[in-house]
């Protein structure tokens, strides 16, 4: 349904996306990356909102920039918050339904609003809606014409946990029904709930691609710096160093030691036995570079 072939996009001297290639079929695919990684640009390329500076983008076998008829099969939840504020939610969603040639646009719009738990009879203008409600209106307008391809740019932004869970369930179900759902996120934990396929984008490049669990393992097995809180930091540090579980040890206080691992998985296996052998109580274990930025930097550098 979606195919990017060495697609690049640059704005002046700034390269937003560099030679990204992937193919998507039915199911949910998460586009994961830190802010500024190029996720929104990739989604804009997929939707035809931007043309690639180099390479090719195709959806349903056609060029989304050149063939507006393809939009009949596409639904987008854009990242920006702007809506036609003077309109009611029902009228706004009905506008999309109407332009997509949906029969009974108002009825379908009402149905789509119910799916996202908004009241179709609400006569207030969209300018009065909270961020979460506006987000759900955007989702309703993307769903109202029952598209085969759903592109979601940070769709859970501003939603409460219950709405997040509900929409994740909805999108997963749409994927299971055979639609292609491409969703972007910069939250690793959130992506785990989307489903199995992940594209990791970092610094405009496709850093990793595949099953979520494989990528998570890859992320977790990277070198990292960890602070251990213990009653015997010197003894524990020496034991870990001796066991070959860490590459470096720095005692930073009377109850703290910072270690540099080279193999995250091996460290996890060895840390408890090492503490036992050192006669140390392990009170806390805190990764110091566990933010997504460092994860992505690692993936890009591999």
């Amino acid at each position: 349904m979606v195919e990017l072939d060495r697609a690049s996009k640059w704005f002046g001297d700034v390269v937003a996306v560099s030679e990204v290639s992937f193919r998507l079929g039915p199911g949910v695919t998460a586009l994961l990356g830190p802010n500024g990684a190029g996720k929104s640009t990739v989604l804009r390329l997929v939707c035809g909102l931007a043309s690639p500076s180099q390479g090719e983008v195709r959806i349903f076998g056609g060029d989304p920039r050149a063939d507006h008829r393809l939009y009949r099969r596409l639904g987008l939840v854009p990242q920006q918050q702007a809506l036609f504020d003077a309109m009611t939610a029902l009228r706004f969603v009905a506008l999309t339904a109407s332009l997509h040639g949906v029969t009974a646009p108002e009825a379908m719009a009402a149905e789509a609003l119910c799916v996202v738990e908004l009241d179709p009879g609400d006569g207030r203008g969209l300018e009065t809606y909270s961020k979460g409600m506006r987000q759900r209106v955007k989702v309703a307008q993307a769903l109202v014409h029952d598209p085969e391809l759903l592109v979601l740019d940070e769709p859970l932004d501003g939603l409460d946990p219950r709405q997040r869970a509900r929409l994740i369930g909805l999108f997963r179900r749409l994927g299971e029904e055979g639609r292609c759902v491409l969703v972007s996120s910069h939250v690793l934990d959130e992506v785990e709930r989307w489903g199995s396929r992940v594209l990791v984008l970092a610094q405009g490049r496709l850093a990793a691609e595949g099953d979520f669990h494989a990528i998570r393992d890859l992320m977790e097995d990277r070198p990292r710096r960890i602070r251990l809180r213990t009653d015997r930091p010197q003894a524990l540090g020496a034991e870990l160093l001796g066991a070959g579980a860490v590459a470096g040890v720095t005692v930073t206080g009377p109850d703290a030691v910072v270690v540099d691992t080279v193999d995250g998985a091996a460290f996890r296996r060895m840390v408890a036995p090492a503490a036992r052998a050192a006669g140390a109580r392990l009170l806390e274990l805190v990764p110091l570079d566990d933010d997504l930025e460092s994860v992505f930097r690692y993936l890009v550098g591999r």
Partner: protein
Amino acid sequence: MALLWRTLVGAGAGRGRLIGLAALGVVAVLLGANLGADAPGGPLEHGAALVSAYGLSLLVPVVTLVFASSVLGDPSEDGTLVYLWLQPVPRWQLVLTALGAALTLALPLTVVPLALAATASGGGLRLVTATVVSCTIGVIAYAGVFAWLGLRVRRALLWGVLYVLVWEGFVARAGDTVALLALRTSTRSVLGHLSGTTTAGAEGSLVVSVAILLLAGAGGFALTVRRLTRQEVA
């Protein structure tokens, strides 16, 4: 497309904007009423001069600029254009609907007060007819050009005002060739020919003037379609 047209009309019809532009129209009517039938040169000449100097030189271009430049320009700047752009609708239909919305707002706020001003000036049916025709064609011409400008540049209102006041107001007076690039020359020519007056400035033939205005409108429409098709949307 009717719902889209209603949406765009609603988006363009801000209360403050309507009141402000309607006030410009009221000024035209008051000026027309105050000319009086005993004005030197006769009411027809003076009515035509008023419609030409105030209506075609200021009211028509400014009112049309406000609505036409914002009808697609505002969505482009505030990020809502994506909701229009991603519809499975030919781009020319989107632009035509947008221009329809702009004309819906601009025509009543220009043609009606200027026709009333022409009536109030005592210029008679001939002047009123000439006013309605020249205003209508002028609004159509300016709408096409300013809709394109709204998509093409940021702060289109400022650029449009500069065009109206500086280019049409001063530069275009420098010579006949430059004057051809000012729509005002053609709208005034249409008014002059149809009203049979001289103060309006009946330069060139009526047919050529009408053709220039219609071509400007159509050219602006075509450029807007081309711009919308090629534009990258945020």
